[in-house]
Each structure stands twice: as C-alpha cells, then as structure tokens.
C-alpha cells in the first residue's frame, strides 16, 4: 500500500545576469574651430549625427581650423543596452590665460542614426557622438577657449 503523500515539491526558477563592467574611452573632443568674432552674438551648432557645423545666427565668421563632434566608445556585455546621458545642459568655456567665457549648451547626443540608447554590438561596443551649440559674444576677446563636459553611459 503506497504511503500517503505528506510532502509536495514545487520548483521555482531563479536567474541572475552578471555583466561586464562598462568602460568608456574618449575618441575625440568637441572642437568648434577658429572664428573671428562679430559685432553681435553668434551661435554655431555641431550636429552629433553628421558632425557638420552650421551657423544659426550672428555675424561671426568661421575661418577654418579643425571642427569635430566629440566621440566616446563604450565597451561592455555584447548585446546589452547602454544609454548615454549628459551631466549638464550648459557650460562655460574659458579663455586660456584669462577670464572671458563663451557658453556651450544644447549638448546633443546620439550615434550615426541619432540614437542615444544603443545595443552594444557582438563585440560589446557602441560609439556615441556628442554635438553642441557655441555662442560667440559680440567682440569676443581673441584667444583659445577650453572647457569640459561630462556624460554617463550606463546599462539600461
């Protein structure tokens, strides 16, 4: 005679995913190039998707030099989603050796398709671009202007 069932068993599944640390390297800085200031405020924007700079207003003149969007490559777990976010909306860049400033804002994030949120590829990498908007003041003091901005790339 079989013994009565005094105990029952139920299975529950448990899963955990351990991801590789995300590492980020900077490939290039955000460089607006060389200008001659005008008599009015002048705005220039670098497109994160195309890297092309356009003049939005004002009478400052672009006279060449290197222009580039910033670029970062994140490395982590293949096929994981990793999103880039900016840490600030506006910064002031400062003349080297002086105190004069110019505003850089509207940091524009994306990849070649304009996406901030990306799936890391099979090798665990994705590249993100950063554009932005520079305002050159009327009769802006000549010189080299520098500043820094922060972004964060994190798993979703």
């Amino acid at each position, binding site marked *: 005679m079989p013994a009565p069932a005094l105990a029952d068993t139920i299975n529950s599944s448990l899963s955990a995913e351990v991801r590789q640390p995300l590492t980020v390297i900077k490939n290039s*800085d955000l460089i607006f*190039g060389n200008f001659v200031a005008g008599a009015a405020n002048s705005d220039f924007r670098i497109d994160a998707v195309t890297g092309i700079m356009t003049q939005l207003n004002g009478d400052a003149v672009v006279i060449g030099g290197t222009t580039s969007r910033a670029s970062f490559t994140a490395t982590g777990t293949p096929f994981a989603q990793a999103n880039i976010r900016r840490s600030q909306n506006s910064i002031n860049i400062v003349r080297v050796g002086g105190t004069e400033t110019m505003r850089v804002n509207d940091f524009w994030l994306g990849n070649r398709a304009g996406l901030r949120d990306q799936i890391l590829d099979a090798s665990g990498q994705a590249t993100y671009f950063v554009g932005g908007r*520079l305002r050159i003041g009327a009769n802006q003091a000549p010189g080299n202007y520098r500043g820094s901005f922060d972004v*964060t790339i994190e798993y979703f």
Partner: protein
Amino acid sequence: MIKKIIINAADKTYRSKVTLFMACAACSLPFSPAIAAPASGETRTTINQSVVVTKNADLFFGDFVPGGSNSVFRLNPRNGNLNQRSGDAIAIGGTPTAASFTASGTPLLRVRISSGQNRIFIVRDGGTERMRVNRFRFDGRRNRSLNAAGEVTYRVGGQLRVGPNQMPGTYRGTFAVNIDYF
C-alpha cells in the same frame, strides 16, 4: 514520522540560502560597480583677431611724356621696376613704386589677398580725361601665413595705359584689395 520529514525540509532550505549567499559574495566585488561609466570630453574653440590691413605705400607709375600711340607700362610688384610693354610714350622718372599693404592678425594663421577689381580708370586732377590701370598683380602667392608677430606684407603692381597725346596733368584713382583669413 511526520516530525522527521519536516526537519529534513528545513535543512534543505537552509543549505540553499547559504549557497546563494556565497555565490553572491564571490561575484559582487568585481562586478557590482559596473553599471554606469562616466566620461568627460573637452570642448575648445579659438577666437582670432580680425585682420587689420594697413597701407604702407601707394602705387606710383611716375612721370611720362605721351606719344602718338597707346603706350603700356607695367610696374613689377616684386622689384618695383617699370617696364614698357608697347607704344612710344616715354617714362621720364618720378618715383615708380609698388603699392604695399601689411595685414595684421593672429600669428601663423593663413590669409589670402584678392583684388577688388580687374581694372580702374584714373582721372586727371581738375579734368575728366582718363587712363586705364589694370592687371593688378601681387609679389608672389596670394595665400600666405602670418608670421610669429601676426603680420604679412603684400606688394601690388599693375599696368598703366597712356593714350596717344594724353592730356598733361596729374592722374589719380583708387583700387581696393581684400585680405582675409581662409
């Protein structure tokens, strides 16, 4: 009998918790901070001084006695020499001089000179008679680099046509050059 079964179940549960805890302890140190990675970029740009152009000297062709036909003279911007190309007018001296301009701006940047016109007519003081000046030429390359002091000098020559029996007098005119960064 029933009591024994209950004790066994409790033992299994306890072991399971210990195992799970150990696994987490083993993996947590290297991997737990790895959910976000901050990065910093630099942004930079350069504002340059506007190009300022100063005239050092005007373009002088000198003094002539007209002939019976059109006569053409060229002033060489490299050496300031006046050369007769055609005609029978005679150059009798004066001070033939190439025009000279100095551009000032941000050191080592590239600038380009361009002529504001292809030809002009210079007009006799107190009259309406004219002579043509054309072929404005520079003493070398149009595109140059400003030196360490932020300066570069261009000299400009040209070609004058003295008409047959050109009315005597002093003839004047103006021409423009543009010097810009490029």
